[in-house]
């Protein structure tokens, strides 16, 4: 017998060592993994780099303890939260969640969830909290929920605080004896604010403010009542639930260290969203070119959280977050910018030549693009019909691209692009908060104005191109089966009379449910009639006559300017009243005889 070779024992030993090493490594990796999962991450929505475009994407990505932050914008429910996370908006009033159906916008099925700085607008139920504990819902706005804003079922130790409930059927629904806390909220114009507190109920309602609810329910302790003085809650384009200094919804709170007057609701407490809403009603004008001075005014923001305004200015380029030149206007709503504030008289500049000009044609349109020209602050574009010099279209843009529309198909246009330098200041107004004075309102459309300092333009070298806009023929060239009878009566789809009726359909019928139903009925029933009309010349003529009144009304409503409409109405009135008088005279005459 041969002795057993030694290497299996060595191998076995080596394997044991490897195994121990691997177990240690795995343990280490597991610890690392645990460590990673214990560290809270912040997930931004949207985040294109990480392919997160919706809240649902973020929820799928999130782990326990993560913080999901929503950029201002509109989001859609329904959403389900089944992890211990925080979901918050970056600006309460401008981070809006809307319903995507009858289901709750947010369904919470996890413990220790926090929801804050969001506006829930419309729908049946905003938040449905089921079988979860220690959920915090704070600093949110709930408006126009048909069923309930917050429905807490089988859950305990919820903290519903510093929210605003406005115009909801039920603001908060709670089961009794679940140790939930509802405090420092504002309930205004709801059908039912809170359920009644029953004897021995462990739910606690404290320091809430009530105004014009049909039923306040169990008000609890330390209740306040009176007008919260919201700034503009009815403006559906941008609801403003910030509260004014004269609000009745505030109280003395000895526990507060910042301010003895503590406000209730979304914009109360110590940690409300401090970013003011964008400035409104901004206007600016040039007071003097030399010395340079500009007047700027805006609408006062009445929120008690607004500390003042900064007026930003930028020579020849739009104001953005990197712009550092500003004048602090304090709490005024008008200011005059002068050279001492940092305005500088512009120095004349000569733009270069337009290059890489290209034209893309489309239906009645020419799309132009070119390379941006150094020193150019804008571009004048002129499109002239080469067959009809009287048809000229002009346009002025500040970017290196433009679309000229309203052109005639199959006509060739000579298009020139001329760069120019024209000194101008861009002025933007941003409000800041009253607490830290560092939270600035956003730069959105309307908060920036452009002031031209000198009407004279220094022109650069133009470039020109010729292009012929044309209709696009799709493939397959399927017909549009709209306006069947009119098309049959007038003989062809593109007849101007048919176009007038189509315009009427688009502007007055398809914009409401009754009109859409009428159009749908017409499209269902008219094709057989249209086929008959099409076959008989006599019927075509009769239909054209029958359509005249409708055509007249459609043309009146869709193609006349308001002053022309008034003129036509007056003419009609005079004609009719003259006709009635004439009839009266004829009758009187015949009686006299």
């Amino acid at each position, binding site marked *: 017998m041969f002795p057993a070779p030694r290497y299996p024992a060595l191998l076995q030993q080596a394997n044991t060592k490897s195994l121990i090493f691997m177990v240690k490594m795995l343990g280490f990796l597991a610890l690392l993994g645990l460590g990673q999962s214990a560290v809270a991450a912040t997930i931004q929505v949207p985040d294109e780099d990480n392919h997160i475009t919706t809240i649902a994407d973020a929820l799928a990505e999130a782990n326990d303890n993560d913080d999901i932050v929503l950029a201002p914008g509109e989001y859609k429910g329904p959403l389900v939260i089944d992890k211990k996370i925080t979901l918050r908006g970056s600006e309460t009033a401008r981070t809006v969640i809307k319903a995507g159906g009858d289901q709750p916008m947010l369904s919470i099925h996890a413990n220790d969830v926090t929801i804050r700085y969001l506006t829930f607008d419309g729908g049946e139920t905003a938040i449905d909290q089921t079988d979860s504990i220690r959920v915090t819902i704070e600093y949110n706005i709930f408006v126009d929920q048909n069923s309930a804003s917050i429905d807490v079922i089988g859950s305990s130790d919820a903290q519903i605080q510093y929210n605003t409930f406005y115009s909801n059927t039920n603001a908060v629904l709670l089961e009794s004896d679940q140790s939930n806390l509802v405090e420092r909220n504002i309930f205004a114009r709801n059908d039912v604010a809170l359920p009644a507190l029953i004897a021995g109920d462990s739910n606690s309602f404290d320091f809430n403010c009530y105004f014009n609810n049909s039923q306040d329910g169990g008000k609890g302790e330390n209740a306040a009542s009176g007008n919260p003085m919201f700034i503009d809650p009815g403006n559906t384009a941008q609801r403003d639930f910030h509260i004014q200094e004269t609000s009745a919804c505030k109280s003395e709170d000895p526990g507060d260290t910042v301010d003895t007057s503590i406000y209730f609701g979304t914009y109360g407490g110590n940690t409300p969203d401090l970013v003011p809403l964008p400035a409104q009603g901004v206007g600016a004008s040039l007071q003097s070119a030399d010395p340079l001075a500009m007047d700027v005014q805006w609408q006062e923001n009445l929120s008690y959280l607004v500390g003042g305004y900064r007026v930003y200015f930028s020579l020849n380029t739009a104001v953005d977050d990197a712009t550092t030149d500003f004048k602090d206007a304090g709490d005024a709503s008008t200011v005059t910018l002068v050279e001492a504030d940092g305005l500088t008289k512009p120095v004349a500049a000569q733009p270069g030549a337009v290059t890489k000009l290209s034209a893309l044609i489309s*239906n009645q349109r020419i799309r132009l693009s070119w390379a941006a020209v150094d020193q150019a602050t804008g571009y004048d574009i002129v499109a002239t019909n080469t067959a009809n010099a009287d048809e000229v279209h002009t346009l002025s843009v500040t970017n290196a691209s433009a679309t000229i529309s309203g052109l005639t198909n199959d006509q060739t246009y000579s298009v020139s692009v001329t760069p120019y330098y024209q000194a101008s200041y861009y002025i933007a107004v941003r409000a800041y908060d009253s607490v830290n004075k560092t939270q600035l309102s956003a730069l959105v459309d309307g908060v920036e104005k452009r002031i031209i300092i000198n009407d004279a333009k220094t022109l650069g070298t133009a470039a020109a191109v010729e292009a012929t806009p044309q*209709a696009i*023929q799709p493939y397959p*060239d399927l017909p549009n089966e709209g306006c069947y009878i009119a098309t049959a009566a007038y003989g062809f789809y593109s007849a101007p009379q048919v176009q007038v009726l189509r315009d009427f359909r688009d502007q007055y019928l398809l914009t409401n449910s009754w009109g859409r139903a009428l159009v749908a009925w017409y499209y269902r029933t008219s094709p057989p009639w249209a086929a008959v009309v099409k076959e008989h010349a006599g019927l075509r003529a009769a239909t054209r006559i029958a359509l005249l009144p409708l055509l007249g009304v459609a043309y009146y409503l869709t193609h006349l300017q308001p002053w022309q409409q008034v003129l036509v109405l007056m003419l009609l009135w005079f004609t009719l009243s003259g006709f009635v008088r004439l009839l009266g005279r004829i009758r009187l005459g015949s009686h006299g005889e």
Partner: protein
Amino acid sequence: MGNNVKALCLALLLLVPVFAWSAESNVSAVIQGGVTMPDDDQWKTFYGDDNYSHAGMTLGWRVMRFFEAGLGIIYASDSGVGQFSVSGQAGGKVLLETYPTTLYGLVRLQFTETQWLVPYLGIGYDKVYYKLAIQDQERRKGSLEGTHVRFGLQLLMDNIDKNAAAGLHDFGIEHVYFVLESTQREAKDDGAGVDLGGTLYSAGFLFQF
């Protein structure tokens, strides 16, 4: 041809109550998806590919063991470019969406309830609704009438996982089939020179209730 097929399919549907007793399970639903190969040989020029995807569902009534009638709807879309009316050059984005609705009759060669492979052959009347979105132009919508012939194979899944099949019985689903199907659709308007016909290759599941 179209009217005759339509009349035949309607007659089959009307006969449902008369023959409903003759089969053990009478109602079926199919969910399927696949690709459409358009008959139009210029499709690739404008849409960049010679096929586009579709998805749809049908509801069938089993009139007798061998005959089924039903209704179906499919959604299909393809995006491409049009051409300029004068120069003929390609340009302008176009999105074509079609919603063929169908009224059909099938002959299913099924001799026992547990037959594992069931071939079938059918014909149907189609109304192909369409919507065309053209860049910078008015949307177009309308419909074309057509007919189709289809052939397919239904593979009974019940024996593959008997427990799962038994579980589905609780939801009223008697049998589940995997379906492979080919459909040849004619839907053209010779006067206008347009053709929305083609060959559809589909796969899906049939649930028999």
